[in-house]
């Protein structure tokens, strides 16, 4: 059909507000970063201890754990799901790896010495991926809400971790004469630095970069956004929704396992209850970082910035001698404030 629309007229109708629009988009994307920089600036002014090498190193090292959880969590939340089991997966992977590399194992009557550390870590990571995939399979196959499934596995996996460790810290004083200590490189990964930057933080940055690339440039990344943006539409366009769900939970499990093993290095110990409560901190990081809690919009860079915001806030309140009771209140309030501001701006730009 011939179309002879008066094109200049059309262009005039659509161009009027695009500059304001571009500014709004830019603010939407860089809002969390601006908030983080503002917090750092204020804390540098009010506390002489904040902007010191030691303190910054400390913050980044501490934040690496939640940041790693938050990177995996981002994939899940982008599909419209939620993973309450991340911290439990981290603890289970950490315990499995730590037990295997420090204690002799007896399997079917055959005594096996402690596993080579690299093999033990790979098994730990595999356990994390499998636990995540299990979440995804139950959700995709049986249509159980994500929240319920991961609430259940959160408890199950903590139980498994308690079974693996017998409820004691690893390496354990009960392990006997054949036990070996944790390898040095693992301790280094948790506590060491390269050019002054904590190794743990570098690992988190590397994982973030890979995750960013995956989300932006692969079929899986696009499917993740599509499933969260409109599940039914994704299905009609030929996206395998179930497969995507299983994969995002597997990715979440993978990131959690890495986080858990790095944590063993930092603490020189693993225990079944490590990181309790950090699943909620990872969700808060993702949402504070600008990812839409109902899926379809957001990204991993924002989540790492979100984790830093929460980390800096805690650190700053410590430096300012705020009582831990008030710290909890302040952290919760900031999370709500950020999300309310975000919704407010979002609904404003869509009206």
């Amino acid at each position, binding site marked *: 059909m011939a179309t002879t*629309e008066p094109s200049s007229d059309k262009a005039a109708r*659509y161009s009027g*507000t695009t500059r304001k629009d571009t500014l709004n988009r830019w603010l939407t994307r860089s809002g969390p970063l601006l908030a983080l920089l503002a917090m750092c600036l204020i804390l540098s002014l009010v506390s002489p201890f904040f902007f010191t090498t030691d303190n910054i190193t400390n913050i980044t090292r501490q934040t690496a754990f939640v940041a790693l959880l938050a990177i995996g969590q981002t994939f899940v939340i982008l599909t419209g799901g939620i993973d309450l089991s991340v911290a439990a997966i981290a603890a289970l992977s950490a315990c499995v790896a730590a037990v295997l590399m420090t204690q002799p194992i007896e399997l079917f009557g055959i005594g096996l010495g402690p596993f080579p550390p690299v093999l033990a870590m790979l098994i730990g990571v595999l356990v994390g991926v499998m636990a995540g995939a299990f979440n995804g399979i139950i959700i995709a196959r049986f249509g159980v809400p994500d929240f319920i499934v991961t609430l259940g596995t959160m408890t199950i996996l903590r139980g498994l971790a308690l079974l693996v460790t017998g409820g004691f810290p690893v390496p354990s004083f009960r392990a006997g004469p054949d036990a070996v200590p944790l390898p040095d490189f693992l301790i280094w990964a948790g506590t060491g630095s390269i050019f002054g930057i904590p190794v743990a933080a570098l690992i988190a940055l590397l994982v973030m970069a890979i995750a960013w690339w995956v989300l932006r440039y692969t079929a899986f990344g696009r499917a993740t956004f599509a499933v969260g943006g409109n599940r039914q539409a994704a299905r009609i366009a030929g996206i395998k929704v179930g497969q995507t769900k299983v994969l995002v939970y597997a990715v979440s499990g993978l990131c959690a396992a890495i986080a858990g093993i790095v944590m063993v290095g930092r603490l020189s110990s693993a225990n079944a209850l490590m990181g309790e409560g950090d699943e909620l901190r990872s969700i808060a990081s993702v949402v504070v970082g600008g990812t839409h809690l109902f899926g379809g919009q957001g990204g991993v860079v924002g989540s790492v910035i979100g984790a830093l915001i929460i980390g800096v806030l805690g650190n700053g309140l410590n430096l300012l001698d705020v009582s831990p009771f008030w710290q909890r209140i302040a952290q919760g309030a900031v999370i709500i404030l950020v999300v309310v501001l975000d919704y407010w701006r979002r609904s404003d730009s869509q009206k």
Partner: protein
Amino acid sequence: MVAPGDTALSLRDIDKVFPGVKALDSVSFDLRAGEVHVLLGENGAGKSTLMKILSGIYAPDGGEIRIGGEPVPRLTPETASAHRIGMVHQELCLVPQMSVAENILLGQMPKTGLGAIDWPQARRLASKVLDRLGVSLDPKREVGELEVAEQQLVEIAKVLSREPRIILLDEPTSALSDAERHRLFDVIKTLTQEGVGIIYISHHLSEVPMIGDRVSVLRDGKMVGTLPARDVPEAELVTMMVGRAVESQFQRHRGEPKATALEARGLSLRGHFDNLDFKVRYGEVLGIFGLMGAGQAELVRVLFGLTRPTAGQLLVDGEPQNFTGPSDAIAKGLALIYRDRRESLVPLMPPGPNMSLAWLSDKPPWARLERARERDEIKNYIGSMNIEPPLPDREIMFFSGGNQQKVVLSRWMSSGSRILIFDEPARGIDVGAKAQVFALMDGLAAEGAAIIMVSSEPAELSGMADRTLVMRKGQLATQLMNEHTNHQTLLSHAG
């Protein structure tokens, strides 16, 4: 009190700007008491925006609103109902778990002396309003159990129960049968005799002289003109809406059909359709017609792998298929232009990614996205299909229905689909976009694609289909060749 013929409502120079688009540009409009003023315009022309301003949902950026001669500086949903403006939305907003009476009287349930709900009185009031509509519905029934047409009538009853002086009707007949539509027209006439002013939005041009006193046309956010509705020719209205003359909505440039593309043998879905046998060949358009609930909606889902059939076989290019999901169907060259565009597109994604989603259906998760190809192809489609606004980075939710439908079409054209299922392709699309969609459909068939077109609009089928299958209660009632496909034959076999 406003007497019939007086101006009930007037808008002067209303402006409304959204990010990236001027939705209303100095629009003036007035409504007299006791008249039906039809508002026409393509999707995206600004009709819905205007309605939302009148019902207080949006605040205008400029201009003046007067109701009964009094300027109204600030119209909110509360003040709108205080001015007795009632709105019947295109999308139903009922509470499915509540009864008919509760829905009709939502927020104004009668109370007994003790403050409890007076149920007998509530049912009496609801019945009274329903009687006025000429509907026999039990006020105790749960709304979720009702047919869509009945729900629409409840929606109208809900507005009537508030005794409005001005009623906004947004495409009220889209789910109604012929008889129900005429009953609604009778109600509208009664209301206008009582002095109620009605703004009537419709896509059906044939309704304009049937119901309207005056007709106004919006195009690209501007008011094009207002005419008496009785004897304005349809062609003139179309020209006003589209901004140019449209010769024919339907085109045919097809040659002889070729090999069989898709065949159903005894295809059944328990409770919906039974033992269907039909074929569609490359190069032809096969129409499927049926009244609401005849099974054609479920047939579409089975053909595209969204639902598994309970019996029978589906063959593509002569080979039996067992689709486990749409990705299998897409791999065999099938495409679905679904009746509900909200279930076809990801609202927060721009046109490009929405188009290229289907490219991923046969790819492993780790495959690289073809971002450069996506950018180039969507630019081409935006140009060749005249997609508005021509902004490849804007999220698809900001596009009008017709433009969204073009993006859905670009998805399948760019995926090389050879068997396309058009399920109510023109629903909620305006005249200009409709003609474009049908021209694209004809072009695809002429290039050798097989097309299945499911429609409840007889005119579309007689205009486009080479053959039409008529479904009745899950069975194939008959097959009509194009020369015998018309309003009468289709309805007589379907009903």
